């Protein structure tokens, strides 16, 4: 089965519908599916719920989908870097479901593993626990969190072979594997697609079984907080 597509628009063909749930990889602007976000903007699909740790910045990453008002609801752990996000949220145009970062990652992983719910200590006794089932083990309370089953996953990797085996680079891996796992359909964008046999099978980070469609392209890879140290003078 052919997984490699020529463009984001081709790869997204037939996968989008209004009101759907999309899981997106990335942490801040690191390892985000830039090309697929552009493709979703161009498609005009709307009323999206997006599960993503962050919401991009103004005019870049998921910020582009906020600018076009295509997102109805975000499921995130931290959204502080985006003025348009805050404007829409404070005016009631955008729904926001805060998830602790590890809970969000585990909800994606669980969904991808067919696990509808799990108990965690994270958030016990906080606003996050409100309305959630509490269960005790060994005298400690845990709350029930639900797996995320997304209609579509969009992720970014460094390299892929044409069967969809993915290799990530450094901290750009972040949410991409769990986001990829929880989607009914997963589209991955990579910097380079290499022939099968050229990736070491022992060094595949995410097996191709999770990846249904693939595209290759150039990435801007914007840096959010450029921090450097001075070279010590001799």
């Amino acid at each position, binding site marked *: 089965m052919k997984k490699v597509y020529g463009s984001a628009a081709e790869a997204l063909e037939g996968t989008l519908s209004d009101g759907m749930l999309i899981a997106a990889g990335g942490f801040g602007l690191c390892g985000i599916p830039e090309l697929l976000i552009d493709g979703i903007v161009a498609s005009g699909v709307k009323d999206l719920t997006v599960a993503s740790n962050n919401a991009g910045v103004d005019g870049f990453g998921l910020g582009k989908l906020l600018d076009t008002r295509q997102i109805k609801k975000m499921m995130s752990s931290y959204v502080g870097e985006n003025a348009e996000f805050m404007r829409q949220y404070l005016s009631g145009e955008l729904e926001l479901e805060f998830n602790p970062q590890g809970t969000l990652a*585990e909800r994606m992983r669980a969904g991808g593993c067919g696990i509808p719910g799990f108990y965690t200590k994270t958030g016990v006794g906080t606003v996050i626990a409100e309305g959630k089932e509490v269960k005790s083990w060994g005298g400690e309370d845990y709350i029930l969190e639900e797996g995320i089953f997304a209609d579509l996953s969009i992720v970014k990797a460094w390299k892929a072979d044409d069967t969809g085996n993915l290799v990530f680079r450094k901290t750009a891996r972040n949410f991409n594997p769990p986001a990829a796992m929880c989607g009914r359909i997963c589209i991955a964008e990579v910097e380079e697609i290499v022939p099968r046999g050229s990736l070491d099978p022992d060094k595949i980070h995410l097996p191709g079984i999770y990846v249904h469609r693939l595209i290759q392209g150039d990435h801007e890879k914007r840096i959010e907080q450029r921090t450097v140290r001075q070279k010590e003078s001799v």
Partner: protein
Amino acid sequence: MPWDRNQMAARAAEELQDGWYVNLGIGIPTLVANYVGDKDITLQSENGMLGMGPFPYEGDEDPDLINAGKQTITELARTSYFDSAQSFGMIRGGKIAAAILGAMEVAENGDLANWMIPGKLVKGMGGAMDLVAGVGRVIVVMDHTNKHGDSKVLKACTLPLTGTGVVDRIITNLGVLDVVPGGLKIVETAEGVTEADLRAATEATIVG
């Protein structure tokens, strides 16, 4: 003289034991890395890295290599990378020995508030709730009072909580306190700060 930011960070670094895997929060906790000395400490960055190195030299920045504060960083010989689910798996699984975190308020029962001020812009809890629920030891580093002079070391937190009963030790500009049954116990005071000064700046119950 109360401790300054660097002295608080240096004092917090004394808490870390050789061989520990540690997560440092944003702000003063980040400075702790400068004071670990010869101890073999591996820093975790919860976006998916163990063995976090210093900031890169200008020109060496890599957009694929950032810390949880989204700052460009570097890797070390010991570095490993992993995804967010595994990262928080090791946090929840108790593999991280300690987290050193900033706080808005701490209560005498170990409750911690450090993510949300009602009526102000709420950015989110990030990984803070997972960290305080999962790591072996939670050490808070913060100023003892806010800019109005009100104590941040309280009988009960007034702000929405990050976790309940999670804090083990509090290091402030005035000294060090432990969370113990019945309240807080003074471990030490900053040089030139008396126990009376510390008590006067503390709303929480001090025992012993």
